């Protein structure tokens, strides 16, 4: 894709009516929300302030788990939505929470997510809420950080209490770990006191922002057992009301927004990785271990998920879509 500058020049002439959108999101601005701020900035700049997107942080417009409801009722035009907060609101999108999807690079992440968004089931379930997905926030792969005896082999996971949910939780159950549920903010104390042994979060930024590294002894760095998906969604009716040149603008700036997000993650990793390496034990599994993990356990979890959802939609098709997006074939 073109450089940021090219896009700017091409788009800097967009003229159009005054439009104001509200964007609903929880928490404070953070590395993972760069996409949103970047979208708001680009839109404002390229329309010369005629189209503004006001980002309301801190659940000011809606509870985290009700952002799709807010879109549905027209409470705001755009919002961040995380699939794992409400699995049954977006059953198809949950495919991105399955373990060991073939996402090994930033490009894979882009390709897989775009393919999933383009899938009929995901479009359909978003449409029920009057919503459409514009862009992902490209949550990095999860890794697990914990305290105590490091799980150097798959055997070692037996009996460990790990905070993890969704497909990842199921996967850990398969290798004998015990998934726990707690609010993210309680994980720090939980690990410190030993009420849980480890926690899975997007690597590296979430671990460090919850300060887990302060109380942990080890972390996995190449397990990449899964991810999650938190896309930016728009209200379909609000989108339809935009003049064509604004819609075009959205398409044009999409790549540079993703690029801004990539840089934000990279910057935070540049700070975090040395910090983790220096203070904690890094666990890297051998290719054979990972292969065993994938073939023996991950497939089980994926098949479980397919079986659970097959009756309501083409779950297998979705999984196949994910693999074919990066030129692989799901067995």
């Amino acid at each position, binding site marked *: 894709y073109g450089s940021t500058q090219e896009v700017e020049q091409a788009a800097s002439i967009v003229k159009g009516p005054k439009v104001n959108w509200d964007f609903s999101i929880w928490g404070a601005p953070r590395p993972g929300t760069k996409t949103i701020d970047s979208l708001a900035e680009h839109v404002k700049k390229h329309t010369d302030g005629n189209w503004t997107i006001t980002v309301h942080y801190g659940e000011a417009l809606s509870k985290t788990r009700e952002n*799709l*409801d807010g879109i*549905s009722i027209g409470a705001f035009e755009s919002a961040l939505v995380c699939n794992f907060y409400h699995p049954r609101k977006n*059953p198809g999108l949950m495919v991105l929470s399955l373990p060991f999807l073939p996402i090994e690079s930033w490009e894979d992440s882009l390709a897989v997510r775009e393919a999933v968004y383009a899938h009929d089931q995901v479009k359909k379930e978003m449409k*029920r809420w009057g919503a459409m997905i514009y862009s992902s926030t490209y949550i990095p792969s999860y890794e697990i950080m914990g305290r105590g005896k490091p799980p150097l082999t798959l055997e070692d996971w037996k009996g460990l209490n790990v905070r993890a*949910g969704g497909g990842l939780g199921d996967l850990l159950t398969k290798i004998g770990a015990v998934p726990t*549920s707690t609010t993210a903010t309680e994980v720090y104390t939980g690990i410190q006191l030993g*009420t849980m042994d480890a926690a899975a979060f997007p690597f590296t930024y979430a671990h460090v922002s919850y300060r887990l590294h302060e109380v942990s002894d080890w972390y996995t760095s190449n397990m990449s057992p899964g991810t999650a998906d938190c896309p930016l969604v728009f209200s379909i009716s609000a989108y339809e009301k935009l003049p064509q040149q604004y819609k075009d603008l959205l398409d044009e700036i999409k790549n540079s927004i993703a690029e801004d997000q990539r840089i934000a993650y990279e910057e935070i990793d540049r700070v975090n990785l040395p910090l983790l390496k220096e203070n904690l034990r890094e666990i890297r599994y051998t290719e054979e271990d990972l292969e065993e993990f994938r073939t023996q356990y991950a497939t089980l979890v994926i098949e479980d998920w397919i079986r659970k959802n097959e009756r309501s939609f083409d779950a297998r098709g979705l999984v196949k879509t994910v693999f074919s997006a990066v030129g692989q074939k799901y067995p």
Partner: protein
Amino acid sequence: MSPPELVHQDRWGRVLQVLDSVLGRVENATNLVAGILVFGLMLLGVAQVVARNLFSAPIFGYIDIVEVFMVGFTILSIAYVQRLGGHVRMEVLLSALKGRSLWLCELTSCALTSAIVAVLIPGSYSHFSRAFEFGDSTMDVELVIWPAKLVVPIALALLLIRLLLQMAGYARMLKNPRLPRVAIPTTGSSADRAKEEIALVQDTVK
């Protein structure tokens, strides 16, 4: 006390009294359910602490369970509290009013309250119906949420009925301030609230 002939002619008051006591029973039941749910929350919490600390096997989905059931003690008995005049308000002005002006003020504020509750019922019903039709669940163990969301419009509907009854009660007092009070809470002055607190303790501490 009002003169007996007044009570005798007070057919409206008798009807209100019957309605009040029927609705009152329903409200009492909702509040008892709420209380029992709090007790259940206590037992669940103890179970969770024991399971986690003694057996290292926390109840998976504990938070989900609490969040689904807590609607029972956040809103279910809202009409019960309204009947007792237990919802917080500022009494400075009201305590200065007497007779018709007091009842007019109460009637107006009751009417405004009914108006907003009447708006909240369809709103919360649509919140429920989205969860029911499009799907909604808790995070970890994917419990369905729509039954909990349905509790809200039901509780608010009960509240609306209670409010209409109180409006009738206030209208009756407005018409004839000498009648005995029926279907309306005590004015809720600080002195009254102190009395309630005292009544509560009376039985227990000697």
